[in-house]
């Protein structure tokens, strides 16, 4: 895949995550009962970073969890048979909590739909909010899902792919636009 342009480097990513963390803390008036849930894979390290930053700002560590939405996908047959399933880990009951779902890119909204379905199987949160590092814009949305907190909105074509690169998986911290092969 050819990278057409780089829209975030390590510094701008840090800045965006700092702003997202501040907005989440301000909107929810602190970190009490706040439950950050990262969506595998790249939502997980982003959720960890946001949790650390909220702890620095508020002095309280939000609750934390990981969702693996593989078994809730509606496109098992089109992504190829039997995607690898990983664990879902929620450190505490979600009933009555304010959940902030965290993912790297918001595109069609189907991943978030799957995550919401899964969350509801685990309990009844007080409310669920959505934070993403990159929003590809409403024109790509296939479901009525919007983010509450956005690091950067990037209008893209269907033929393009946005890749959030994190040191945990890619040895580099950046966001790039690639042409779909």
């Amino acid at each position, binding site marked *: 895949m050819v990278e057409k342009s780089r829209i975030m480097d390590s510094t701008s990513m840090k800045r965006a995550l700092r702003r997202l963390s501040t907005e989440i803390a301000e909107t929810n008036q602190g970190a009490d009962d706040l439950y950050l849930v990262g969506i595998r894979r790249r939502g997980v390290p982003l959720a960890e970073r946001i949790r650390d930053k909220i702890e620095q700002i508020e002095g309280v560590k939000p609750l934390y969890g990981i969702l693996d939405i593989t078994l*809730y996908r509606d496109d098992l047959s089109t992504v190829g048979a*039997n995607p690898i399933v990983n664990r879902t880990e929620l450190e505490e009951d979600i009933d009555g909590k304010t959940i902030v779902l965290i993912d790297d890119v918001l595109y069609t909204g189907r991943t978030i739909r799957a995550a919401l379905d899964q969350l509801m*199987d685990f309990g009844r949160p007080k409310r669920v909010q959505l934070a993403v590092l990159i929003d590809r814009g409403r024109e790509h949305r296939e479901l009525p899902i919007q983010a509450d907190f956005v690091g950067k909105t990037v209008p893209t074509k269907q033929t393009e792919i946005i890749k959030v690169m994190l040191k945990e998986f890619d040895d580099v911290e950046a966001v790039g636009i690639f042409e779909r092969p």
Partner: protein
Amino acid sequence: MKKPYRRRDLLGIRDLSPAEIVGILDTAETFTEISSREVKKVPALRGKTIINLFFEASTRTRTSFELAAKRLSADAVNISVSSSSLSKGETLLDTALNLDAMAPDCIVVRHSSAGVPHQLAKVSQAAIVNAGDGSNEHPTQALLDAMTIREHKKHIDGLEVAIVGDILHSRVARSNIHLLTKLGANVRIAGPGTLVPGDLASFVSDGLTVCPHVEDALHGADVVMILRIQRERQDSAYFPTLREYSIHYGLTNDRLDLARKDAIVLHPGPMNRGIEIASDVADGSRSLILDQVKYGVAVRMAVLYLASGSPTGN
């Protein structure tokens, strides 16, 4: 990331690579969490149909497969031999073709003859899962045994595993010998001479020892796997009496003391208490017999998911 298992059917452990076995076990591990939830169900196999075709009576295995299918939101249909057309003279092949025409995604089959799942796999469009075929294999039992061992010992490689009892008739033993030796365990076999097949040495290349006395197999073992005495097969007098079998081969606490202090005890069930296993061992702290049942559901969820995770079953 590599996919753990790319086959359509699960016919036996013999043909699987160690990586495929580990892949199934890893997938099963992620499914254990689902059974501990309040809502024990995920939509992964919604719209898929799974037929449990059992030509031999089985409560535990059939229920385990049925629960596994339902926890993945598949529609499960149970067919037992007494209600099937086979009793009206239909051939096995015709039964299979008729079921196939109803377009199931997966058929789980148990039969008293070895090789039946393999035959069905040749003619069926559905994925075939072997739930036990004669004295040949019982792959999901071996997988759940391996999962139980892995959950408690954290590894399988290098473990000393004693398998005691009726090896000759045991598909559980065969599948376990394949699986455990492929994953690097040392397997010691012990049982009455009439119930230990002579060709075991050619069964696997290494990692297998046939012990002359049960005590030799148990000495220093990390895992003790006791096989059920198949009382229905004892017409041929493989040993004089059940009482004598119990005296010479039954697992008592005294015999278990020969194994390591942290040894675990497995039994595929149903147990003949007081014959192959003493009640105080079966109910003791080292017994993981109910854990095996628990992990059985997770293993079967993983197998059904991997076998029928796409519209074609491929």
